[in-house]
């Protein structure tokens, strides 16, 4: 007779702490033109941005909620606070100047330690505002710009921002892109000049502290011709009983022969609706690499999209999604091959346990002129127990003949034989299963910098280690 295993939920004490902000500035709950104007005024937006926000709000009001994904009925925009600014907020470059409570939060998350050890620059966002932004002198000396987006809107890069802002993800793309266009705040702007290779990664960390709030940061990265960048994004929040919303937007412009690796370890709390939009456009010979680990959120809609515009441009998408109790994580990717001889490689793993639902959803489109293009998709799903669910919904749309498309997907459970083998070598069943799941997710962990890979493996071990009976 098979022995059933019960795996307890994650111990989230690492992320599940908060402090009460009594004096923070908040806009009213809900979404009206007045609130949008108020945010715009707070941000000191140029006129074009105010107009853009109001137009986006109109678009938002006209669009329907998507009907094809997980339910977001628990999300009521009338209850969401779209802008929260910490008291006496100002963005600083010196860590010691960050307000104590906020500093403590990031200290506990290990952000400044990581900066000292392994990062070229760090941005830290707390609720709707960036509280800290710093880039190493030697990286700045190369001409690399890493700053908050609002400052960039008013500085020497203002025209560049206007030229690129929400051009890849227009507000008409979907309802939550329109919402983002209306109420966005915070986020980073990165510009890597021609031929510059940033040897160590930059990181932005987003922390949502306020209950019932939304975070709508915008990340805009432009990697110029021949340049090279690794950007890491991390996010977390404490758990509340009310719904929180994350509707960020990431726009990545990868120049000719440039390379950008965009890594994300997402660990939002399990009351979060994560409706994030990420998109990259890659020019001739350029390459985008997405590394994505999704562990948190109550509901996720997350499908980084790559538009392979230039000939010989490439995309690699590597992800792991871990859905536990109360989670419905709908993740995947979209790749549109436009240029000739473009290639994409998609390698994903999904793990469902303890009643969690994970869905892998993808679209590979080979355009009419994308002759010589190649695409390979591999997705594997692991069911850890009998009360969870895992779906795989990949779509392929091929519009020319000169292409080579391969797709494979597998779904299954942890092999009893493998568990037995590991136990016969002296491991407990719990450790054996955790080891198997860690190995299953190694497509992502082996692509991350060591410190992050260790963190991800710890997350998996935390997820897997519970009571087994």
């Amino acid at each position, binding site marked *: 007779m098979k022995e059933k295993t019960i795996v307890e939920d994650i111990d989230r004490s690492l992320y599940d702490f908060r402090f009460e902000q009594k004096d923070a500035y908040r806009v009213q709950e809900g979404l009206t033109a007045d609130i949008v104007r108020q945010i715009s005024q707070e941000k000191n937006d140029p006129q074009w941005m105010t107009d853009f926000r109001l137009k986006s709000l109109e678009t938002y009001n006209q669009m329907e909620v998507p009907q094809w994904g997980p339910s977001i009925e628990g999300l009521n925009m009338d209850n969401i606070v779209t802008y929260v600014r910490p008291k006496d907020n100002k963005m600083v470059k010196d860590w010691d100047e960050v307000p104590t409570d906020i500093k403590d939060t990031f200290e506990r998350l290990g952000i400044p330690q990581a900066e000292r050890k392994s990062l070229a620059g760090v941005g830290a966002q707390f609720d709707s505002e960036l509280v800290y932004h710093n880039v190493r002198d030697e990286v700045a000396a190369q001409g690399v710009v890493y700053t908050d987006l609002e400052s960039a809107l008013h500085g020497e890069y203002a025209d560049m921002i206007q030229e690129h802002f929400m051009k890849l993800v227009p507000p008409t793309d979907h309802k939550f892109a329109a919402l983002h266009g209306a109420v966005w705040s915070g986020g980073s702007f990165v510009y890597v000049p021609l031929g510059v290779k940033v040897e160590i990664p930059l990181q932005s960390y987003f922390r949502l502290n306020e209950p019932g709030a939304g975070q709508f940061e915008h990340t805009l990265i432009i990697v110029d011709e021949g340049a090279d960048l690794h950007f890491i994004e991390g996010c977390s929040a404490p758990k509340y009983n009310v719904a929180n919303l994350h509707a960020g937007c990431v726009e990545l412009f990868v120049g000719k022969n440039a390379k950008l690796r965009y890594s994300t370890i997402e660990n939002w709390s399990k009351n979060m609706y994560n409706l994030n939009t990420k998109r990259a456009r890659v020019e001739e010979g350029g390459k985008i690499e997405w590394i994505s680990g999704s562990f948190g959120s109550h509901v996720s809609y997350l499908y980084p999209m790559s538009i392979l515009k230039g000939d010989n441009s490439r995309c690699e998408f590597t992800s792991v999604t871990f859905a536990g109790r109360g989670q419905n994580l709908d993740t995947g990717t979209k790749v549109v091959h436009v240029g000739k001889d473009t290639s994409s490689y998609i390698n994903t793993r999904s793990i469902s346990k303890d009643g969690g639902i994970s869905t892998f959803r993808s*679209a590979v489109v080979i355009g009419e002129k994308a002759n010589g293009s190649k695409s390979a998709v591999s997705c594997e799903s692991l069911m850890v127990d009998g009360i969870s669910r895992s*779906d795989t919904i990949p*779509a392929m749309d091929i519009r020319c003949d000169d292409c080579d498309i391969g797709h494979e997907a597998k779904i299954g459970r942890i092999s009893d034989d493998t568990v037995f083998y590991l136990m016969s070598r002296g491991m407990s069943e719990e450790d054996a299963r955790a080891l198997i799941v860690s190995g299953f997710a190694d497509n992502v962990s082996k692509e991350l910098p060591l410190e992050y890979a260790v963190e991800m493996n710890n997350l998996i071990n935390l997820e897997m280690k519970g009571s087994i009976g």
Partner: protein
Amino acid sequence: MDIQINKIPSPTWNWLQMNEVKVENVQTYNKQNGEAYISKIETPNAVNHTVEDEFDVDAATGMGDEVANILGDATVHTFAADRAVNEPVVIEYKFLQGVSASRVQLKVSSNAEMIVVQDFASVLLEQGSNESDDVTGDGQNDKSEAAVETRYDIAAGGHLTLIQVQHLKKDLRFYNNIGGNQEAEGGFTLIQLVVGGDESYYGCFAGLQGHKSTFENRIAYLLSGTDKLDMNYDIDHTGTKTVSDVLVSGVMRDAPKKLFRGTIDFHRGCAGAKGSELEDVLLMDEAVRNQTIPVILCDEEDVEGSHGASIGKLDEKMMFYMKSRGIPEEGIYEMMAKAKIDSIVNEIPLESVRRYIKDLL
């Protein structure tokens, strides 16, 4: 009237336009027009053939309910076997101009076996005849339409082999809809060959309800010109240790459009179930449009599911080799197309049926 058919059980992004298909301006069949398009029904002595007004097999279908708007009040032909029958039932259709519709029920009793061949052909319509064809009287031209819905019921230990061959001429919109359920150890083998047509819609729902029931599906299609083929296959695993195996193989040349939706749905409780789905598409011309969405839905831990797709043109080395042996490009296409069809036809268990189909093609 417009209808929406072939809805995928788990929809995805609307912009892909793959969730379902909308067919505009369809016409409803009326029984009073007779069944002149059924040119022959051959029934072995051991198979009981009866005629009814309505289906009594209650089953979901791949195309969904809205296709009933075309089927109208078409006669239901029921074929029932209560023992192993080696001779096939053969139903030959020769669709005419206008609207044709047929409803078929296949009932296989416990431990019985039945083989059914459905031959879908059409008579050549008069040149340009449907250019001025306005049956619905709405001022728009209406294509001729033919719809066949086949429902099946396989009792414990029974086995049904259904072989469908489509070699239709142009100017016809064709709907081929299948659905049924299988009890314990009931087996269903579905072989479908599409070698000619214009605008074709295929749907199939296989309800694997009984323990160890099996569904084996082989599909080969050759599309050319501006052919359109839209498919929706839903394999529903509810019984324990059920097995499904779907292999779709196609060749596309000129500017055809094809959309294959294939869903393996593992419901909670189908412990020990296995499902696999494989699609292999050879693209021969730059104007082809090939869409595929192979889905696995899994609500049960103890299952094995897989799907794979291989889509592209013929390997350049292979092409070069064949050309170096003096085979022209057209000949290579013919050869590949024949190989795809033959590989499926060769899986048909009865020599007489294999010969029948080869003669037909």
